[in-house]
């Protein structure tokens, strides 16, 4: 792990991989750490933060067990066939691998309630759309890079859409508006349209 400069009010912990980032994030969560794919942002005076990090051990994640969340999906997304062609698979096989994968919430970002899910089948890695869609409906389930994710609300977006869910990803009426948090385990379940 390297500590990189990030202005006068933060530092960025640049970790070897996602697992190391999650250990640092878990250890520093109470200090308002924000998790990225392989990085952790800490806000505060850089000199103080360097001392804090020097005095901190990354957490042992065996103690930190995320919740398990099931997300029902109708696999009829507009990009399902294109994803299958790109991956050299039949559409059914894309669905089977998406359902069989052990997804973990790696980090949040892009929009309130949007979770980057990692741990998918490596065959499902696809590039983003060349031209993002101006509008993607809430509940759309997508793939981009090695991540999967669900759009919590309508927004522009460049992920390749393979299905849709009515799981409530983001609801301000709940005490905890986000359905998914870093470390949670997500299983997609195929349901009939």
């Amino acid at each position, binding site marked *: 792990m390297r500590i990189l400069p990030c*202005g006068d009010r933060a530092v960025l912990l640049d970790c070897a991989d996602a697992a190391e980032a999650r250990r640092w994030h878990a250890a520093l969560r109470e200090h308002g750490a924000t998790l990225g794919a392989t990085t952790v942002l800490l806000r505060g005076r850089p000199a103080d933060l360097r001392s804090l990090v020097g005095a901190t051990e990354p957490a042992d994640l065996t103690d930190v067990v995320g919740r398990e969340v099931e997300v029902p999906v109708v696999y009829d997304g507009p990009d399902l066939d294109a994803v299958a062609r790109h991956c050299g698979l039949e559409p059914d096989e894309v669905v089977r691998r998406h359902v069989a994968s052990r997804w973990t919430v790696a980090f949040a970002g*892009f929009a309130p309630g949007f979770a980057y899910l990692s741990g998918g089948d490596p065959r499902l890695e696809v590039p983003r759309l060349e031209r993002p869609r101006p509008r993607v409906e809430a509940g759309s389930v997508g793939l981009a890079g090695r991540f999967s994710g669900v759009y919590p609300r309508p927004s522009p977006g460049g992920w390749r859409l393979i299905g849709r869910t009515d799981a409530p990803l983001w609801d301000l009426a709940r005490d905890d*508006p986000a359905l998914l948090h870093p470390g949670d385990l997500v299983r997609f379940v195929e349901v009939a349209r």
Partner: protein
Amino acid sequence: MSLRVLEPGALSLVQDLGRPGLGDLGVGPSGAFDRRALREANHLVGNPEGAAIVEALGGGLALVATAAHVVAVTGAAGPLTVDGTPVNSGRVLALRRGQVLRLGVPELGLRWTVAVGGGITVPPVLGSRSTDTLAALGPAPLSSGAELRVGVPADGVSLEAYPAALASGEVTVRVVLGPRDDWFTPAAVADLLSSPWRVDPVSDRIGVRLDGPALERARDGELESEPVLRGSIQVTTSGRPVVLGPDHPVTGGYPVIGVVVDPDTDLLAQVRPGDVVRFRRHRA
């Protein structure tokens, strides 16, 4: 006890000091772009420094007082009137019931800040009254007829004045290089620090886009998405920098060549299309 919107202007938003610390929910900090102006205006009308204000882009906002209120307008500089009579920005103003405060087109800067004694008390969302234009959180942009409820004023106003401290046409902000300056050639880093960067009209609270020489990468490939903050200078695939504003996304996939020091990010609230931004190296 309210201010009613007669005319909303180009884009007028309720803002406070934002909702920090929710990055793991995918929620960014948002909040006033020109926080200095927010603090000054709140100070003048006797509010706590983080009370909610109106941030008005450009001119055209007109508010009518439904009761006696004290207000203060800071940030940009330009013509202001109460019932058609010119008044000064940067100092406390008294509005009687029925009087109309009207903001003209700024002569300097871009965003006006309007504070009212007692603060604007629209219901908070996730602990803040700020409108996050990217995340669509918080109160809707002001529209004609909207009623801005006002809280109970604290005792006393300030008789100080805050003249707008704005440069015309050019600002210099301090920047700490990194975290990803090593993704760029030394020539690109030198270009960043020596070029006049022209403000692109497609700038908003999410980011101030700048035009100038393309900044050349020293390495290819995609950066894994990483957390960014207000003031981060992302360099897009076109090689042009975007300085992130208060409504920036929580994470971004473009390498950040440098980060504008926090107090200087307020200056970027006031740059106009065509203005020049210069970056001066700062060692944190």
